[in-house]
Structure formats: structure tokens, C-alpha cells
């Protein structure tokens, strides 16, 4: 395995609806910021990879326009995943492992505000049996939440506490959308939204973008004082259909963490991508996170969830804790698909 490090990370503020900018206009400053931070000029990245979704943008091949933000002339080596940018980072990491690149620029972006996001998310389901019934993303998550609550896998108090933690941590994150001091009992007393979920159990709808730079080998130290070295990287998926997999645990997260060589007892920071509060608890349980780990110091997805960037942001926030020296080991997690169908774990350390 080649040593590869995250040397720079940048993100736009997440907002409910950026009516003033198109995707490219949101993305450009973020790409400029990681170029500047890494000191790698345009044209010197060996590989560029992005994550976005045409259904969110409402137009086919929308990612091609995204390239206008990076400048594809002279021609560049480029790829795209119709997934969160965290999977674009994985592709870039594999490319570097294979020896085809020594550096990579990765980004993810979306404007979830353009359409009815929970409805658009029905497009990721089975097109014969499920999408024609138009189950929205919140209803799908609510089916999982009820099973968790009724089997005791997760308690209502744990869900409320996840929201309290998210909002409190997000107070120190200028890019977060929801932050503040909220009270567990008051949250529990609120009316339900899509029962059993409350509105606060659901991540907000966000517009935003994030970008990251990977560099291989000792050269990484030229681009970052304290690189976040990737020590393990894996993604695992389960069947999409909710009926044929257990919903009260996240086996694919547990397996991804195992393959990434995560030692939960030694984790200083974990940034988990749980778009719904019960999912954050399931992720903690799957990885075996204990009280010595700082979970979601950024506030996590419950504080801001720009689709296609929120997973990459988790990895970036984890890396940022290594960069600033506040953590020696960190884990970034990203999820995709309904009810934690697919999960990615990236383990990193400072040294």
C-alpha cells in the first residue's frame, strides 16, 4: 500500500437555498481554496474526480458543467461518480494506489433546494416495486426508525441526545446550517413530522460543495504541515430492499470499519454521516465507538447535509482535526442509499 494523505480540505457554507449562485459558482471558490491551501496549481493534479447527481440538478450529465469550475484545458484526467464525493475520493485513492497518479483533486456538490428533495430521493429505489409508490426519503428512514425504537436497538432519548450534541457542536462550525442549545425534553415533546421521526431527527436540506486534495508519499509534507495519512479505506454495501436486510444494525458499516483496520478504542475523532438521528446511533454501535471518542465535532449531517458533499465533508472534517493537531487518529464515514444501504469508512492518522 502506498502512503496517501489528505493535505487540504475546503467547503462552502451549507445553506437551505442558495438562490443567488449556480452549482459552478458555489464550487469555484471551494476548488480555489484547496488549490491555494495545497499549493498545487491548476494543471498539476494527476487526477480529478467528482461526485454529484443529475436527479438533484434536474438535468442529464449535469456533472459535465461542474468541470467548468476546475478548468479542463489543457485536457485533464478526470472521472465522476453519481454518488457522494467520498466515493470519488475512494476512486482517486485507488488510482493513486495503482500508481496512475501521485496527486488528486476531489470534489462533491449539489443544490438540493432546486427540487423536492425527499421526493427526488425516491429515484434511488427499486423502479418496479418502490419508486412508482413514491416513498419519500423521510418515510423510508421513519420505517427504519420505528423498528429501531420498537426493538429497543435505539431509544427516543438517544435520538434526541444525538440532536442536542449535533446542534451544540455546530455552534463552533461556521459552515453548519443548524446550531444552538436545545433541550432533550423539549425535543422529545415536539410533534412528530413523519412518525416516529420529528423534524429535528432529520438532516436539513442543504446546498453546498466541498473539495479535497490527496498527495502520495513523503511529498505530502510539502503541501501540508501535518498531513492526514489514510491508514485504511473501505466501502461495503447491502441489498437496497429494506425487506431483505436487518434495519436495526449497520452490518456494512461494521464490515467497512473492520476492513479499514479501525481500532475504535484508539479513535480520537469520528465524523459519522447519519442523515437521521437514529442512524447516527446505529453507526456508533456498528463501529463500537466509546466515550473517549469525540463524535461529530462539526455537528455532522444533522447540522448540514448537502447531498453528494456531506460524506466528503465528514472525511474532510476528520482530516481537519489531524491537520490542526487536535487529533492523532480520526475516522470519516459516508453513507449512500436508503436507510444506510452503503457505507464507507476512511481511517486516518497524523504522524
Amino acid at each position: 500500500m502506498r502512503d496517501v494523505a489528505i493535505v487540504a480540505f475546503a467547503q462552502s457554507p451549507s445553506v437551505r437555498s442558495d438562490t443567488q449562485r449556480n452549482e459552478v459558482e458555489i464550487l469555484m471558490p471551494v476548488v480555489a481554496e484547496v488549490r491555494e491551501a495545497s499549493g498545487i496549481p491548476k494543471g498539476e493534479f494527476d487526477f480529478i474526480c467528482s461526485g454529484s447527481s443529475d436527479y438533484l440538478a434536474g438535468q442529464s450529465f449535469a456533472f459535465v458543467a461542474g468541470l467548468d469550475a476546475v478548468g479542463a484545458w489543457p485536457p485533464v484526467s478526470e472521472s465522476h461518480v453519481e454518488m457522494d464525493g467520498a466515493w470519488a475520493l475512494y476512486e482517486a485513492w485507488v488510482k493513486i494506489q495503482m500508481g496512475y497518479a501521485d496527486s488528486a483533486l476531489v470534489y462533491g456538490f449539489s443544490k438540493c433546494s432546486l427540487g423536492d428533495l425527499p421526493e427526488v430521493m425516491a429515484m434511488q429505489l427499486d423502479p418496479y416495486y418502490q419508486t412508482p409508490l413514491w416513498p419519500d426519503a423521510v418515510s423510508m428512514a421513519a420505517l427504519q426508525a420505528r423498528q429501531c425504537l420498537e426493538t429497543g436497538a435505539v431509544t427516543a432519548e438517544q435520538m434526541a441526545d444525538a440532536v442536542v450534541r449535533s446542534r451544540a457542536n455546530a455552534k463552533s462550525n461556521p459552515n453548519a446550517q443548524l446550531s444552538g442549545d436545545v433541550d432533550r425534553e423539549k425535543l422529545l415533546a415536539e410533534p412528530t413530522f413523519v412518525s416516529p421521526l420529528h423534524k429535528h431527527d432529520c438532516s436539513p436540506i442543504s446546498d453546498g460543495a466541498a473539495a479535497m486534495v490527496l498527495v502520495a508519499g513523503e511529498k505530502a509534507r510539502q503541501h501540508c504541515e501535518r498531513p492526514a495519512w489514510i491508514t485504511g479505506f473501505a466501502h461495503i454495501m447491502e441489498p437496497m430492499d429494506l425487506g431483505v436486510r436487518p434495519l436495526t444494525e449497520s452490518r456494512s458499516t461494521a464490515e467497512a470499519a473492520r476492513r479499514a483496520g479501525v481500532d475504535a478504542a484508539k479513535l480520537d475523532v469520528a465524523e459519522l454521516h447519519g442523515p437521521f438521528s437514529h442512524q447516527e446511533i446505529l453507526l456508533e454501535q456498528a463501529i463500537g465507538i466509546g466515550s473517549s471518542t469525540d463524535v461529530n465535532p462539526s455537528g455532522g449531517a444533522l447540522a448540514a447535509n448537502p447531498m453528494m458533499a456531506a460524506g466528503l465533508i465528514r472525511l474532510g472534517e476528520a482530516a481537519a482535526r489531524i491537520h490542526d493537531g487536535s487529533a492523532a487518529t480520526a475516522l470519516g464515514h459516508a453513507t449512500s442509499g436508503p436507510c444506510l444501504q452503503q457505507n464507507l469508512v476512511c481511517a486516518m492518522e497524523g504522524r
Partner: protein
Amino acid sequence: MADEKGPVEIVQTPVELDYTYTAGQAATRFLKGVEQGKFLGQRCPVDGLVYVASRGSSPKHGVPTGPDTVEVSDKGTLISFSIVRIPSANLSVEPPFAAISVLLDGADSHLMHVLDECPLEEVRMGMRVEAVWLPKDQWTASMQNVTHFRPTGEPDAPFDSYKDHL
């Protein structure tokens, strides 16, 4: 009955999703110009090229264009074309017609439009063309203000004048 229908082999799963698009800064500036009967471009700060109907970035250099705008002409040179003969429900023009790429005078990027008032066999690269606008009282912030392009009758532009923009 069942036998007459035969087994189900296909399911229809139509999708219809509603969005509210944002033009963003660059396209808004362009469309507000069109509302005034003008084509406004934006300049790349690196190489000075003028993009008309910019999306806000220099696609070559990945840096923001503008915010200052550059007015370009509504006349230009036809630099490529295709005769469209296949009808589509999404087309507002009856085929056959000429879909054209126009390099507006003062611009470095080309604009896609439709050529009319010209026999199809006369359409050619280098032809000088101009925008035909709706009556002024019908102008909105939309490219529909320009119904089509038509030949100006000027002599053709020499190949060397547009070869770097192909």
C-alpha cells in the same frame, strides 16, 4: 381475457419532477442584457477571452469570469451548422431547419441557435448572420427574445478570421 392480453413484459414508470432553477450570477447578467436587447459577455481574467452566455467561470482556467460585462454584437459569423430533419416533441421549430453555431462579433465562445430566411442549401461556414429580435414590447429576460438568426448579406468572413474558434 388473460390469454388475449398475454404476459406482462413491460411496465411504464414515467417520472415527472418539478424544479425551480436558479440562473446564478453570470446567466442572470446575460439574461438581463437580453431583456434590454443586448448580448453581454464576461471576460476570463487569465487570457481575456470573452464568454457569451457565461455560466460564471472560465471553463479553460476554472476561475470566475466578470463581474464586469462586455457588450458584444448581435451580428456574427456562422462557424458550424447541421440540417436537422428529425422531428421531436421538444422542438419548437419544424424540421428541416439549420441549427447553427454563431461566433458573435466581439465574443470568443459560440452561441447555438436556428438560422431562418435562408434556403438550406445556401447555409455555409463563414456566412455572416444577425439576430432577429421579437418586437421590443415583447422582450423578457429570456433567449426567446431572439426568434432566429438570418443572413446579413455581407460578404463571407475569411476562414482565418474564425479558424481559432472552431
